[in-house]
């Protein structure tokens, strides 16, 4: 499967009377976009804003971040099984508005959701302070249940990204990158002497508001399976969660999965990157055993020599991470893990809720309990009141002057366990 990813670089975003890309600026017709995303009677009002890098703007509580993409050639459309038919995606040509993002916010869904600061210290921790963001603030109807609320907003975000992505359809990309993974047997023949490597991609599936979708299927109902890395780039996997926002993968991160990108970089040189095993993080012991048995079985089936395993979330999924590591290692397959840490505000606690001696090669994305002070911002998109109650906040997090003191947990994407950032932690 071969995908050409055409990047159209976006440096600015403006509302205009026509939606189009011109000289690196994404112009957006507000009304047309509103028409494209409206119609859900669970939402009574939608507000659109633009937030750009460097502005004194705070967006919260953030639910999802999505990159606008469009399929130019090849089967299917972006977000298969959700907005488009369930065709197998990942081949042909896809154009991306690189530097643009859709951010969904609005009334708090639960205790969930995160913060994006476009400038100041908080901006250093979130990847989405570097993108031009089209921010959608949705006001739900009264007494809408949380999971209905989450679903309504999820679809509005995806529709907006789909609408904006169309603007890239007829634009010549500034840069094109080709990714290719051969059918397994051919791939082995291509590099017979290189060690075979795959990526074990753990998806957050702890339940309502903690869900991930694969071709539209709720991933807690899947048995671990194999997909081509390029399918992910066309939106085969998308986020339905925003709980403890620091280490949940927004849809943006799924499409731009850095483990996949970086594994491709050295493919054919240091190893043969044969594919991706996706698995879930369900809540019962039997489900955990079943899924980890299957990842290990698939790793063996593919005759792998080594895998990278990435976690999503913390606590309960730490056990899934360790089970995957232990069982795959027991097959004689080498493992490298990516996680983040909950070592307490003072950093003195054990960081994970589980441990295993097989986990001897671990990359950490930082201690999410570490406390950070976010200065007041001139403009707020959304609501700051939930600062005291979102995961990572505490009584008094929101100060009278509008500044926020809270754990790093509150920042969207700060401790991404896909290894999206440079943040890490070390032993002192």
């Amino acid at each position, binding site marked *: 499967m071969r995908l050409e990813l055409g990047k159209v670089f976006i440096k600015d975003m403006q509302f205009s009377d026509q939606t189009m890309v011109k000289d690196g600026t994404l112009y957006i017709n507000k009304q047309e976009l509103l028409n494209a995303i409206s119609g859900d009677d669970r939402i009574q009002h939608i507000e659109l804003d633009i937030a750009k890098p460097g502005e004194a703007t705070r967006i919260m509580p953030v639910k999802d971040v999505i990159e606008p993409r469009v399929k130019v050639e090849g089967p299917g459309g972006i977000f298969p099984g959700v907005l488009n038919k369930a065709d197998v995606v990942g081949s042909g040509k896809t154009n991306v508005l690189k530097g643009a993002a859709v951010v969904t916010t609005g009334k708090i869904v639960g205790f969930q959701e995160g913060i994006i600061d476009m400038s100041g210290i908080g901006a250093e921790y979130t990847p989405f302070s570097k993108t031009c963001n089209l921010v959608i603030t949705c006001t739900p109807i009264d007494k809408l249940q949380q999971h209905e609320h989450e679903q309504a907003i999820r679809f509005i975000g995806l529709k907006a990204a789909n609408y904006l992505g169309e603007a890239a359809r007829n634009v010549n990309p500034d840069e094109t990158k080709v990714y290719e993974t051969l059918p397994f047997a051919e791939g082995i023949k291509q590099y017979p002497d290189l060690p075979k490597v795959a990526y074990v991609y753990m998806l957050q599936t*702890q339940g309502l508001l903690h869900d991930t979708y694969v071709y539209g299927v709720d991933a807690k109902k899947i048995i671990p399976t194999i997909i081509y890395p390029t399918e992910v780039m066309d939106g085969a996997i998308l986020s339905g969660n925003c*709980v403890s926002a620091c280490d949940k993968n927004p849809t943006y991160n799924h499409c731009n999965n850095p483990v996949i*990108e970086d594994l491709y970089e*050295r493919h054919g040189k240091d190893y043969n990157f044969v594919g991706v095993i996706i698995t879930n993080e369900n809540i019962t012991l039997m489900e955990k055993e079943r899924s980890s048995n299957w990842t290990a079985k698939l790793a063996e089936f593919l005759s792998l020599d080594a895998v*990278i395993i990435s976690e999503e979330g913390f606590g309960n999924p730490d056990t899934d991470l360790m089970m995957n590591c232990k069982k795959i290692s027991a097959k004689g397959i080498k493992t490298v893990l990516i996680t983040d840490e909950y070592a307490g505000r003072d950093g003195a*606690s054990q960081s994970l809720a589980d441990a295993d001696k097989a986990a001897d090669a671990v990359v950490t994305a930082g*201690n999410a309990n*570490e406390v950070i002070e976010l200065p007041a911002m001139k403009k707020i998109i959304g609501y700051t009141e939930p600062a005291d109650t979102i995961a990572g906040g505490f009584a008094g997090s929101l100060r009278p002057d509008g500044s926020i003191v809270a754990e790093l947990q509150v920042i969207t994407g700060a401790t991404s366990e896909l290894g999206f950032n440079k943040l*890490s932690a070390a032993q002192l």
Partner: protein
Amino acid sequence: MIKIVHYINQFFAGIGGEEKADIKPELREGIVGPGMALKAAVGNEAEIVATVICGDSYFNENLETAIKEILEMVKKYNPDLFIAGPAFNAGRYGVACGTICKEVQDKLGIPAVTGMYIENPGADIFKKDVYILSTANAATGMRQAVPAMAKLALKIVKKEAIGTPAEDGYLPRGIRKNLFREERGSKRAVNMLVAKLKGESFETEYPMPDFDRVAPNQPVLDIAKAKIALVTSGGIVPKHNPHRIESSSASKFGKYDIAGVMDLTEEAYETAHGGYDPVYANLDADRVLPVDVLRDMEKEGVIGELHRYFYTTVGNGTSVANSKKYAAEIAQELIKDGVQAVILTST
């Protein structure tokens, strides 16, 4: 001028070896033994006002008395800084240095620093509590150890930022600190993978801790007579969360009276937990904290009684160290109240 009290053993004080290891603590004005090198190292910034000497056997065999005596001596001088050793690989001396440094820090609030060899038994016990400079395994390393120890100690007393163990020479304390690395995490993972495949050396960013696995207790012999308590990390609290237990990384636990409460209703209870969908817990908190069922069992004589209080916190993102601390406090109260068994519910 920063005032220092220095602690050394009988050997470094020149009193004697093993045969003198039982000498009681004694206080001398000014400098003794390695204090000379320490004085040179701190220069004009600090002054060693007194030296406490104690035999290693005496300290370890009369722990409580020795600590009390030494703390009294230190207190008299009201120093800004306490330095012990360095102890190199001398086991009992190392344990004494670590113990007294921790006591001085905790009881007197005075920063303390010591130095020892990484394999000194005192290093493993105290590295989390006290800055321990990493030294050679024998006193021949004195010339390198003392200036480094002095430098670190002055940094601490002046509240300057302490660098990494590699930068400032102390033994890693197991404290996790955030930093930005050169490459993003995914790239580091790929690099580590390639190193592992090639059999080259690599350094894990998170060494696995010794995991604390708890063996289950003996079963309750007569459940029909047992007083049973409910404890949860599922965040069930009285409506509006009166003590504002955090939705994640809880800094406290709550204790609530359920005398006469037969059922946790939607009007009176909810969850503070931010890690799961709260809809069903809020509709009926018994789903997480089964008061209703236990009341039935109480009535039917299946259990003796349900304890009058339940304890609750939020497990979501709460560090293991904090969880242990809350558990220890809760367990003590439960034992005091004559509770024989606990049902722990998690989410």
